[in-house]
């Protein structure tokens, strides 16, 4: 349904693949999926995976929830690099374009009220998720996602970051997660013998510090990605 906005922009519909190509591709994909499906069906119905290995070392992890222990302790390397990937994605976005001006007109009454009602609840929820991650599903990523959504909602309701915060305070928040994670990871080398090997006695506290920094960074990164350009 091209409504012809100027007529110059090609919407791509005319360049979609031809019918014969689609049929051939469909057959190939069905063969591929059939093979993968057979592979899935031939897997044993029960497999412990790595659950026993994780369970055996929970006492050293500093937290009581297995997923949090894997994320922030056993496979902390992954999580550190993953935060770095988020930062790289934002650098890519910032290097491509300045942020679009955006719509500064006053939001409708529904959006404005919703923003006022939901934003405090979302901040509270993020704090709860961050804290509860030690014993139950939750943690830095969930809390960061909720806090990031609060930031997106605030932007949609017409809030802008004050200019005095858009310089180094914003950049510091963006790198805080990677920075704290890396500093702690390197700092425990003399104590634990290797990178990110926290001493079991301190692990709980260190994980909470890392998660708090990561939550703030993830929220800031997600909101900044939503803005779509260098502020």
């Amino acid at each position, binding site marked *: 349904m091209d409504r012809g906005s100027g007529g110059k922009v090609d919407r791509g519909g005319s360049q979609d693949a031809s019918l014969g190509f689609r049929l051939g591709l469909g057959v190939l994909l069905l063969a591929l999926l059939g093979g993968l499906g057979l592979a899935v069906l031939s897997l044993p119905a029960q497999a412990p995976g790595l659950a026993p290995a994780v369970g055996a070392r929970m006492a050293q992890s500093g937290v009581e929830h297995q997923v949090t222990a894997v994320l922030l302790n056993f496979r902390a390397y992954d999580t550190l690099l993953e935060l770095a990937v988020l930062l790289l994605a934002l650098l890519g976005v910032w290097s*491509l374009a300045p942020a679009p001006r955006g719509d500064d007109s006053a939001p409708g009454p529904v959006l404005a009220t919703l923003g006022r009602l939901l934003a405090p609840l979302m901040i509270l929820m993020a704090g709860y998720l961050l804290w509860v991650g030690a014993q139950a599903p939750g943690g830095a990523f969930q809390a960061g996602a909720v806090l990031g959504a609060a930031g997106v909602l605030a932007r949609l309701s017409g809030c802008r970051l004050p200019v005095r915060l858009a310089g180094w305070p914003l950049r510091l928040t963006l790198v805080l997660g990677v920075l704290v994670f890396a500093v702690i990871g390197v700092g425990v080398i003399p104590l634990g013998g290797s990178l990110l090997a926290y001493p079991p006695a301190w692990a709980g506290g260190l994980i909470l510090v890392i998660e708090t920094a990561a939550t703030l960074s993830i929220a800031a990164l*997600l909101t900044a990605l939503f803005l779509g350009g260098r502020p």
Partner: protein
Amino acid sequence: MTQATLYALTGLGLVGLGLYALIVRAHLLRKVLAFNVIGSGVFLVLIGLARRTPAGAPDPVPQAMVLTGIVVAVAATALAVVLMLRLRAATGRITLDDSPGD
């Protein structure tokens, strides 16, 4: 068929749908969406198969991988959309032109 295999097969179906759209559709936003559908399918396969533990509680390692994967997927999608907008601003096109010599 157990619940775990049902979820995994559904995930495979999503991967197939996404792969088809990624190849057939020329519009870049559709390609980005197709890429996300593929990613969701992969996540569903991982989470589904993680349920096969005898103890009942799912294997935490695939869960942790998917958790980080979701956030990376969001970031990659944002980067892809901004690249797409730049392409459109620079050339006026919203598709990749693969004709030689253009």
